[in-house]
């Protein structure tokens, strides 16, 4: 487990209520065999009518879905994506055949929600002639700018700048390469899981990932 202390605070542009600043350790989610069996049991219980079993699934995967959504649409819209994702999961859980893991199934749903939302946002931006999708991407300045006590202020600033450039380069990647890089290098999915989420062959994932990394390297050099 990689222990990180993160600060995260956003203010919703609409709705009037701000989120409370959260300082929480973030960890990469890795699925084990026990967890998969637990998922199966929870799904079976939910389909048998036990609604509380779904809460278990939400508790287990909401952070993971939020992280993916935040990377793709930004922290402001990520919570909406999470809620839509789990609502779809609620309604479609009977159709979950178990051919892939529940985690990758949820990632697929979240990715579709992200695409829908990005399409809507792109149309709104085009309508109001605002900043296009090729901008800096989601704003992670609060997350990236968190100071590390072991570094000098100059080093912290340089690291924050480096992260900002990296996120900007990721946001500038073509969609197919960006999704492969995010799912593999940021979310930590295996090639097979990425292929399952993106519904493409594993060989395609390999080539997209290599190409995306190469573009990133050139952009940062």
């Amino acid at each position: 487990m990689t222990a990180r202390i993160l600060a995260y605070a956003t203010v919703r542009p609409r709705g009037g209520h701000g989120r409370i600043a959260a300082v929480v350790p973030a960890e990469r989610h890795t699925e084990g065999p026990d967890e998969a069996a637990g998922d199966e049991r929870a799904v079976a219980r939910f389909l048998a009518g036990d609604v509380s079993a779904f809460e278990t699934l939400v508790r287990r995967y909401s952070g993971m879905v939020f992280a993916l959504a935040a990377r793709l649409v930004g922290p402001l819209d990520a919570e909406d994506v999470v809620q839509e994702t789990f609502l779809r999961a609620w309604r479609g859980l009977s159709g979950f055949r178990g051919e892939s893991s529940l985690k990758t199934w949820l990632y697929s749903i979240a990715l579709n929600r992200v695409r829908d939302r990005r399409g809507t946002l792109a149309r709104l931006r085009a309508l109001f002639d605002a900043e296009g999708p090729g901008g800096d991407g989601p704003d992670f300045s609060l997350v990236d700018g968190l100071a590390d006590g072991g570094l000098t202020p100059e080093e912290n600033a340089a690291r924050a700048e480096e992260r900002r450039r990296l996120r900007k380069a990721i946001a500038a990647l073509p969609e197919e390469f960006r999704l492969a890089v995010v799912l593999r290098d940021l979310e930590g999915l295996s090639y097979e899981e990425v292929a399952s989420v993106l519904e493409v062959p594993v060989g395609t994932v390999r080539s997209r990932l290599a190409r995306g990394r190469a573009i990133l390297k050139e952009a940062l050099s």
Partner: protein
Amino acid sequence: MSARPDLVRLSGEDLDLLLSRSLDGDLSSEEERSLAEILASDPRAVRRREELAALVGKLNALPDPAPPLGLTARTNAWTAERGKGIGAVWHRLGLFPPPPMLRGIGALFVIVLIGMSVLRTQNVRQKAEEPGAEKNDGRVAIFFGERGASSPSAQKPSAPRAPAREAVAAAPSVNAPLQKSRIAAAEKSAEKKDAVMDELPFRPQPPKAEIARSEPFSARRDAASGAKTAGAVAGAAAPAAHSESVLSSARDEMAPSGAAPVLRAARAPLAWDVTVANAFVRGWSLRRVAAPPPPASTPTVSYRVTLDTEGKVVSARALDATTPEMDTAVRSLVFQKLTADAPSEIEIALAAR
């Protein structure tokens, strides 16, 4: 020239792919061995590998955006709330139909309902537009005789003869005694013929109304007897309530002319269905008939008639082939206005029974 000519020199993209897979531990042992040989012989590949490894390290080091506080609770509450309603009912039944399917089923149901109502409306409209169509609304059956064997209504006993005679006798007329005796004679004659006619098969005969009007009563009686057809005494067998108006019409015709068209040489229909077309049935209904019934030359005749404010027929235009007698009968009809805005021109249909 390479120091190891047996090694295959990879292009930039292929090298990137191999290096990328190498960093993820995706290479087989044979591919690892090949890559190690390439790295040992190509410093450019070594540099690319180091740059790529640094990039992947940076990507892995990017902090995850942590979920806001209460995200799980909010998501659970939101999902449970939105999952309720119709969806929750399905869930309790163990069914999880996707919302688009439910919307599709609902839309299909609405389309079927609309289609059924449209088809039903069209059917009703088609029936209303058919000229010979039987209409339930506004149809009035007028019974003119009793001699048919086919109609159940005609097989009723001839008990109403006495009331009919009383009705004729009570009718105010200058020729009342004469009419009375003529009717009595006609009834006697008809009773004589009843036995004969019951034995005879029905044979349609040409109308003899003109003869009946122009010849003396005895001649008419003889002619009728000679023809041995199914003559009927007008108003002599009136089993239904409508017969009163028929008798009245017979009296009305007899009084001014002085010649009673008592005998019908031709086979008169047992009844005429006078139907006001659906479009006008709310405005007018048949009130009475002031003329004797014509013989049935055609089974159905439609007329477009113009009515005055009292419901009397001002003009009648036949829409089908008809006879002058039928025209006369139609002009004798009197209608009753049901609504103030009833149109003056209506369409009626007469169907013989």
